[in-house]
Structures are given as structure tokens and as C-alpha cells.
């Protein structure tokens, strides 16, 4: 299957109709991955300009709740994915690490924007910027842009969903 060609909500199993109900058969790994990818809850974490584009993605025009990111939780204990929107500086890095450690497994990370990917426009001659969020946490998906368009963030979310579908235990 190539990227973007297969509908993400395809149920990976078989439904057999029997009188008095039905039977569902499928591989348990596939079913768990399918359920996980369609219901990821993001953590409210935005430090600078990319947070506005993240809020635009959450609003009515480019809605992300149609992909399952319905509830944006403020507490890391109830969130699945953290979208790092904005620059990470030396003072904020321990806070970010602590938030990531407080999230329960399985957890995923999206680095949104040029600043979180590699330091962005603040790469040279700054004494306080961490040059990329992957110095602090392991990142799954990187999104380019300064700030990335809401469609780019949606594409990243779909890519993350496809990545989760292929996970093996």
C-alpha cells in the first residue's frame, strides 16, 4: 500500500454475519493498531508561532477532529501524542522532557515547524536555542515550514497514523 492511497479507517478484519449477531475475526495486532491510530489525543503544547497554526488546524476550516484528534487534553497523563509547536530553548527543555516522561505509553511525538525540527531561523548566533527537539525527545514525524500550513500538519497527522498501522509487537 502506498502513502495516501488507502483509506485509513479501513477495518482490518472480517465481519461474518450469523443469525443472532455476528462475528468479527482478525489479527489482534492489526485491530489494536487500527484502534490506536484512529483515536490519538494531542497534548496542548505550543510555545510560539506554530501554536497559532495548530489552533487553526483545530478550528472549523481545517478540522483535525475528523481524523480522531478530537479532544486536546491539557494534562499529559491523558494524552497520546505531543505536537511540539514552537522553538525549544534551554530553559524549556527540562520541562518538555518532564512532560514527555509523564505521558503513558504508547506515546508519539510530532515536531512541527522549522524550529522544532532543527532550530529553524534561530540556528546561528543564538546562545539559548536547542537546535532541534530531537536533542530532547525521540521524534516520529517532522513537519517542515515556518509556520507549516494547516494542510501540512494534517498530512503529518495522517503520516503518523499510517506509521502506527505498521507497528509490530
Amino acid at each position, binding site marked *: 500500500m502506498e502513502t495516501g492511497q488507502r483509506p485509513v479507517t479501513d477495518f482490518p478484519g472480517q465481519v461474518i454475519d450469523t443469525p443472532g449477531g455476528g462475528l468479527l475475526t482478525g489479527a489482534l495486532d492489526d485491530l489494536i493498531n487500527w484502534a490506536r491510530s484512529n483515536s490519538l489525543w494531542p497534548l496542548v503544547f505550543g510555545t510560539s508561532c506554530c501554536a497559532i497554526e495548530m489552533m487553526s488546524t483545530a478550528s472549523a476550516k481545517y478540522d483535525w477532529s475528523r481524523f480522531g484528534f478530537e479532544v486536546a487534553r491539557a494534562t499529559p497523563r491523558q494524552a497520546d501524542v505531543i505536537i511540539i509547536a514552537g522553538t525549544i530553548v*534551554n*530553559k524549556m527543555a527540562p520541562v518538555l522532557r518532564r512532560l514527555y516522561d509523564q505521558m503513558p505509553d504508547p506515546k508519539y511525538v510530532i515536531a512541527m515547524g522549522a524550529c522544532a525540527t532543527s532550530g529553524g531561523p534561530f540556528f*546561528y*548566533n*543564538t*546562545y*539559548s536555542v536547542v537546535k532541534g527537539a530531537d536533542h530532547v525527545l525521540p521524534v516520529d514525524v517532522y513537519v517542515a515550514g515556518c509556520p507549516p500550513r494547516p494542510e501540512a500538519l494534517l498530512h503529518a497527522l495522517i503520516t503518523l497514523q499510517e506509521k502506527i498501522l505498521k507497528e509490530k509487537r
Partner: protein
Amino acid sequence: MTKEELQVKLAEKLPELSFEEGGEWLNMYVEPEAWPFLAQTLRNDSELWFDYMFCLTCVDWKTHLTMVYHFSSTRHRHNIVVKSKLNRDNPEIETICQIWRTAEFHEREVYEMFGVNFLHHPDLRLLILPDGWEGKNPMRKDYDDPVNMIKL
């Protein structure tokens, strides 16, 4: 009041001020010891009435530091710039946060970026930099950081 009238009035109040030519507003240099008296005069004199301080910063000329204060008046609508030269090794000047309350945060920032000690400030500690950066003074021109700073 225009630039010339301000210059005349301030010269008679404090004869040891030195004025600078050019610039949009009146620029003057004051000694750090005479600064508290000048600050009180600027604020309380009814013809001057500089009650709004809109910028407080420091510039590092490599031989000395210069504090720069920008004032404005809400009553008379004139602006003025006051500068003060400080010694580079031990920069100290009196605080003005009893007169203009906005100076508290501005002076804390100048303290951590340039190392200027403000006498009688109620709470002089780091504001923007993380813990452990006391004494590093990153905005000075001789701040050395071989990892991050690229010298072209």
C-alpha cells in the same frame, strides 16, 4: 517644550550635564552620581513632567558601558533621552524603580545581560536567563561561546 527650551531649562538646573548634537530628541549625558537628582527633577518639575519611561537599555561600547533611558511626558508630549557612562569593570548605578515602577523588570534584564549592578533595587535577580547564568552577561561584546557564536 522644544529641544532648545528643554536644553536651557535643564542646563540651569544641573550645570554639569553635557548635551549631544544631532538626533531627533534631546540627548544628554549625566554622571551616575548625579542621576538620582536628575531623575527626581525630570519627574516632579511641573514644566518637564516626564512620567512615562518607555525604554531602558544598555549599549556596550568596548571601552565602557552606556545606560540609555528614554522618557516621554503625557502632559506636555515631549521626549528626552538620558545617557550615562559606566565603568566596564564595576558598573553601578542607582535604581529608579521607586519613581517609574516599570523600571523593575527593565533593570533586571540589563543586570543579567550586561552585569550592571543597580543599587537599592528591591529584587535584583535573573529574569529571562535560566539558573546558573549569573555572571555570564551574554549581550556584552566579549561574550565567548565557541559552540554557538560564529565569528564571520
